């Protein structure tokens, strides 16, 4: 008797990548003894120690169960449905370090399925292999200035700034932007997830020649970062500029959260995570929380010299994407903590409906607005140049947003708590958690 385990979705090579959000899976029996109607089968983790682990459930919910006993699985091959997700805090470090094993009543292994729990991690916690895989993919995307990265650079320029900044949709637009980039990286290397720079903590191992580069401290030096010879980003080129200029404006062995004096008062340099969450106020509302665009977001950008400290040029620097992944992580974590993933919850977002065409600064920022450039809109106030990207590409690993023309609302329920369709990413410190019992029951 053999057990065949199939997990939805898989990529074109049949590989399965999981996050913390449960996905549907099936188990069916082949060559089973049909003189009985069914056989009991147990699913369990069988990967190497220290690798990724999964949890199981018979319904769409968070689970702590590392084993699942399926009773009386049909011997005629009819599949049995179950749900599987990455076990929170037990992500993979490489493809194949997750192994789901099916055993029969005698504990004999009758089937296996490999996979990976792929989540976005703190950059300083990556293994050297994870780091290099990410850098290789990013370097290939840029291809010395001639690769598809050019479109991502061209999306974040002065003319498009109002699409993505200064209003409610700041976080949603950047979530889509990161997702688009991450999906491209995963086309190159499926095991890659975007890492984040936690800018309220010290991260000295990030700003070194092996990772994001480090400028020379020589008095006559420019702010050009230096990579070790053969580094994947050594050939990084954008806008006809070869190399990356960036110098930290603080001692990187500490967090950049030291207060600075100004005008007789004091302001925090970069808000801590706790302070960022406080922006939501006593009612934990998005309208307050989104002020994080100025600080910690803006404050983190200006902790460096170079293009990264200015909106129209920031995306020239790969650091931009690690910084913004952390901005997005803060939003995701705030959403989880305060149960703000329902797009129709008035506390989860702040401007609703659809913008009128002459809506000025709000176009692209209302809940049901589509977002540029994925919507291909060139009518004012959208930028009048050819949108650098076509629609948001579908992912073999996620069903959402299910359209190439995402709306702001499609970015809110990233784990698919309400829509049941995850965007295909999780953060290492933001679990999947059903927000209300009613929600759970409704989507079983």
């Amino acid at each position, binding site marked *: 008797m053999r057990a065949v385990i199939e997990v939805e979705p898989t990529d074109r090579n049949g590989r399965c990548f999981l996050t913390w959000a449960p996905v549907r899976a099936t188990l069916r029996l082949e060559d089973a003894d049909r003189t009985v109607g069914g056989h009991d089968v147990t699913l369990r983790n069988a990967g190497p120690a220290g690798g990724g682990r999964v949890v199981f459930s018979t319904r769409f919910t968070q689970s*702590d169960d590392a084993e699942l006993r399926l009773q009386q699985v049909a011997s005629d091959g009819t599949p049995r449905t179950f749900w599987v997700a990455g076990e*929170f*805090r037990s992500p993979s470090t490489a493809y194949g370090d997750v192994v789901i094993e099916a055993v029969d009543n005698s504990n004999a292994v009758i089937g296996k399925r490999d996979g990976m729990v792929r989540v976005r991690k703190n950059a300083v916690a990556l293994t050297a292999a994870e780091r290099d895989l990410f850098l290789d993919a990013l*370097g*290939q*995307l840029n*291809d*010395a200035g001639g*690769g*598809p990265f050019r479109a991502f650079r061209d999306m974040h320029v002065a003319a498009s*700034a*109002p699409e993505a*900044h200064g*209003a409610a949709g700041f976080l949603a637009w950047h979530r889509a932007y990161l997702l688009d980039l991450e999906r491209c990286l995963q086309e190159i290397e499926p095991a890659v997830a975007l890492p984040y720079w936690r800018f309220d903590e010290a991260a000295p191992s990030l700003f070194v020649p092996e990772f994001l580069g480090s400028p020379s401290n020589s*008095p*006559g*030096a*420019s*702010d*050009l970062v*230096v990579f*070790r*010879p*053969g580094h994947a980003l*050594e*050939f990084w*080129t954008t*806008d*006809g*500029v*070869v*190399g990356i*200029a960036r110098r930290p*404006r603080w001692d990187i062995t500490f967090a950049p959260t030291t207060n*600075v*004096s*100004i*005008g007789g008062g004091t*302001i925090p340099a970069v808000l801590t*995570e*706790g*302070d960022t969450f*406080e*922006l939501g106020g006593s009612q934990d509302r998005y309208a307050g929380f989104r*002020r994080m665009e*100025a*600080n910690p*977001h*803006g*404050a983190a950008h*200006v*902790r460096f*010299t*170079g*293009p990264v*400290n*200015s*909106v*129209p040029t920031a995306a020239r620097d790969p650091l931009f994407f690690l910084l913004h992944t952390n901005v997005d992580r803060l939003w995701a974590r705030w959403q989880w903590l305060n149960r703000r993933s329902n797009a129709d919850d008035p506390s989860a977002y702040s401007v609703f409906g659809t913008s009128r065409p002459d809506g000025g600064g709000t176009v692209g920022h209302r809940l049901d607005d589509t977002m540029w450039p994925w919507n291909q809109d060139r009518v004012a106030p959208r930028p009048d140049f050819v949108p650098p990207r076509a629609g948001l590409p579908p992912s073999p690993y996620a069903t959402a947003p299910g359209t190439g023309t995402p709306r702001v609302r499609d970015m809110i329920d990233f784990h698919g708590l309400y829509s049941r369709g995850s965007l295909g990413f999780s953060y290492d410190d933001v*679990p999947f958690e059903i927000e209300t019992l009613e929600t759970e029951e409704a989507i079983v």
Partner: protein
Amino acid sequence: MKVRDFRREVEAELERTQARAATERLGPAVADAETWEAALASLQDRRAKPESRLAALYTLQAGAFDLAKFAPFAAVFVAALQTVAQAVDETAELRRAALDHLANTGDTIASRVLIEGLEGTQPAAVPPAAALEMLARDDHGSAVRIATKMLDVSEEVQVREQAARILGSDPASAGRLETMMKDTGEANAVRRASAVALRALRPDAFGTAAHTVLGNEADTEIDATVRRGLRTSSPKQL
């Protein structure tokens, strides 16, 4: 780890840090119009401490990320930076920070200050390698012209390295980059920069030169750089 336990842990930790932050906080959590007005006054006040003015500059830069709210201050901020950039008696750190910000926007006054410093017609605001790097962010034409000249006269490795990178946007410089990439008399940093620039400019010429380098020099810095350049290839349209 159980999600419920994790939630309790996070909530307890946040309560601790937020309570601590509340007792330590002396100013507003997020800058606003009042803060930006004060910051502008501080940046423009030449009697204020340099570190306070620098902090003010950073605050205003961060504010500029809040496009809509900062819009009324944007023009005054740029004008203040231009004033600082042109004032030869300002502190080097403040001047450099002002030029750094202006260089990102292709500011013509910043370009002029950088060019005058590089050509020696005015005292340099920043070292030549830094000036070249800032100039190249937007003003490619001037940068190429000056970089070519600097390569003729300067022996300074950092200047030559920066100049080589700038030539990566000039089709007429492919031959020179190829020569520098292969020249064992050049510093490693300069050869690597030449290789990177040539790869961006003419991948075919880089490929040919790369094989010459690999045939002659194994296990060197230039060898590692060149090998990476050959490995980097464009994925299909994504």
